[in-house]
């Protein structure tokens, strides 16, 4: 066995185990808080629908914003057309009397931050919500989310994001992934170290958003960037599990890959941008564990991918080379095959750590489903097992793509 590969692998095992143990400790220490709070008064809310070429779904999105359970006179809906070249604007105009419409040009390097800022400039609500064209919040979402702004320094409250009507295999695997992610973020709430408030129906305090300077208009992941900004300014972010927003997720592997490539690239670049916060005691657990994890998780995923590929392919290749020396006479080998196995042959150090890792994963996955009120094998066993065993490989592939993209871009620059 290659000793370098071996050492890297053990580091990966130890780090993964460490993080699993750490989050379990967080779970054991504070548990999962109950969320059923009641709203006493109805503050004004601004719902923003940013749209770039969304003619197919924009109407449904506007309708779902109009039918939310919240007093109509306290709700302001702003649809922002971000330089669409299709019929998005004309569909928006059909609702002119019920919603406010802003239309802005799209500069080539502008992203979702731009329409969000345009809306933020004119928003009248105390609270500011983004409703993406591909997401559907539950009807009572605002009623359930707003009571959690119990303190002045709570900048943002996040609903639980779930995959809407998973059909393809990849969507079903993501369905499980999202549940686990939401559960992790719930745990992060305990340490006040959430690193991303995803687009779909995250509710912000408008004044805080303005105070920190609004969104970055060019960032690949403007939702992650705004969260870093809030963390930097010492605000709190809360994740909920019992309020849900359904969102469309990538259907094919290719779509999933490009989504993750964008996410990871954005996360990596933003973390580099905010590197001064890294391990800075002023930012508490966010700087001590969350920021390093963004970077380390990429490295972990890539090493796991590369080493598993090495271990999957190397023996096969080796075997083929050997088979060539005996002219591929499989029959003789097969005919006389006998198993030479003893229980002493197993690698017990590896088995023990794997058993613990598996046990911890089972606990986390089980708890994720339980606290989100979902059935464990909702989508059958296959996507579930896939998530459990091989999902990190997909993450590794996406991170590898990010690494290659970043390296080649750098080479182009010089």
């Amino acid at each position, binding site marked *: 066995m290659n000793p370098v590969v071996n050492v890297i692998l053990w580091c990966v095992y130890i780090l993964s*185990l460490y993080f699993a143990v750490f989050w379990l*400790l967080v779970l054991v220490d504070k548990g999962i808080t109950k969320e059923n709070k009641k709203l006493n008064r109805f503050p004004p809310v601004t719902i923003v629908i940013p749209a770039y070429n969304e003619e197919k779904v924009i109407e449904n999105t506007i309708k779902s914003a109009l039918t939310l359970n919240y007093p109509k006179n306290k709700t302001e809906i702003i649809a922002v057309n971000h330089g669409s070249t299709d019929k998005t604007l004309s569909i928006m105009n059909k609702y002119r009397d019920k919603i406010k419409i802003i239309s802005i040009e799209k500069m080539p390097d502008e992203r979702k931050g731009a329409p969000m800022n345009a809306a933020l400039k004119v928003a009248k609500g105390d609270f500011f919500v983004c409703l993406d064209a591909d997401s559907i919040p539950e009807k009572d979402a605002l009623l359930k989310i707003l009571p959690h702004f119990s303190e002045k320094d709570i900048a943002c409250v996040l609903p639980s994001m779930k995959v809407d009507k998973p059909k393809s295999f990849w969507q079903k695997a993501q369905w499980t992934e999202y549940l686990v992610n939401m559960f992790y973020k719930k745990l992060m709430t305990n340490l006040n170290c959430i690193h991303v408030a995803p687009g779909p129906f995250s509710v912000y305090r408008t004044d805080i958003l303005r105070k920190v300077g609004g969104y970055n208009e060019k960032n690949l992941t403007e939702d992650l960037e705004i969260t870093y900004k809030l963390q930097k300014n010492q605000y709190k972010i809360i994740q909920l599990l019992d309020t849900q927003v359904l969102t469309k997720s990538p259907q094919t592997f290719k779509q999933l890959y490009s989504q993750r490539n964008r996410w990871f690239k954005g996360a990596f670049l933003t973390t580099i941008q905010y590197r001064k916060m890294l391990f800075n005691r002023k930012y508490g657990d966010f700087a001590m*564990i969350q920021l390093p994890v963004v970077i380390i998780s990429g490295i972990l995923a890539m090493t796991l991918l590369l080493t598993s590929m090495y271990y999957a392919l190397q023996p096969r290749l080796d075997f083929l080379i050997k088979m060539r020396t005996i002219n591929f*006479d499989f029959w003789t080998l097969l005919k006389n095959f006998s198993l*030479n196995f003893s229980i*002493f*042959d197993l*690698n017990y150090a590896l088995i023990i750590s794997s058993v613990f890792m598996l046990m911890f994963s089972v606990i986390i996955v089980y708890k994720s489903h339980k606290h989100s009120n979902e059935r464990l094998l909702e989508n059958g066993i296959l996507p579930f097992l896939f998530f459990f065993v091989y999902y990190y490989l997909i993450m590794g592939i996406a991170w590898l793509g990010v690494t290659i993209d970043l390296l080649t871009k750098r080479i182009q620059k010089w």
Partner: protein
Amino acid sequence: MVMERKISKEKYLLAAFITLAIFLLGMFLGLVIEGKRLGYMQSVADQQKLEFGSLQLQYQYITELGEEKSCPAVLATFEKYMETLVKSQERLTGYENDAKINKDEFRLLKQDYTQAELNFWLLSKKVKDICKKDVVNILYFYSSDTQCPDCEKQSFILSYLKQKFQDKLLVFAIDETLDIEPMVNILKETYNITKYPSLVIEDKTFSGFVENDAILKEICSHYSNKTIDECK
């Protein structure tokens, strides 16, 4: 705005402690298993000594009392014992590579096994004569050093040929790095072995890696029965 944010120091430490504990547990278990492996291989070695003693007794029985009709039974026993010896040798090599603290003990055991193997080799020559068995002997010198990239391939070919010829072929593998056993050096000198892998097929030395077809041809040239299936 300056305020104190929480750092969960005790959780970081506790997590590190638990992680370490799990790994120490794994390592501890690994060492316990290593001890068990050693004990197991030793008991197998003891059993093999008994088996060899029995074989010698059977050989004496045939030679001294002229009981040649017992040859098939003796040969079958020989083949069976030889097979278990080869299997335990393979296992021992794996265990020796994995060993963390008992390397020397495993090395001694390996010497034990090599002696057993050479005993089998000598006996096989005698039994072959008296029982008129059509069998070819190969002494295979390999190096457990990392500097022998072809050894693995050569081993694979030989174990393939063993499976092909079954009891008509005997392969005795000798690790040349086992210099604590004087017999190894004596054999190396006798057969003029200078590089690894090397083969001695019925007293004829082949230096360096030998292809499957070449070995096959050489083996077949030694059988008195020229029409056996494997050589066609």
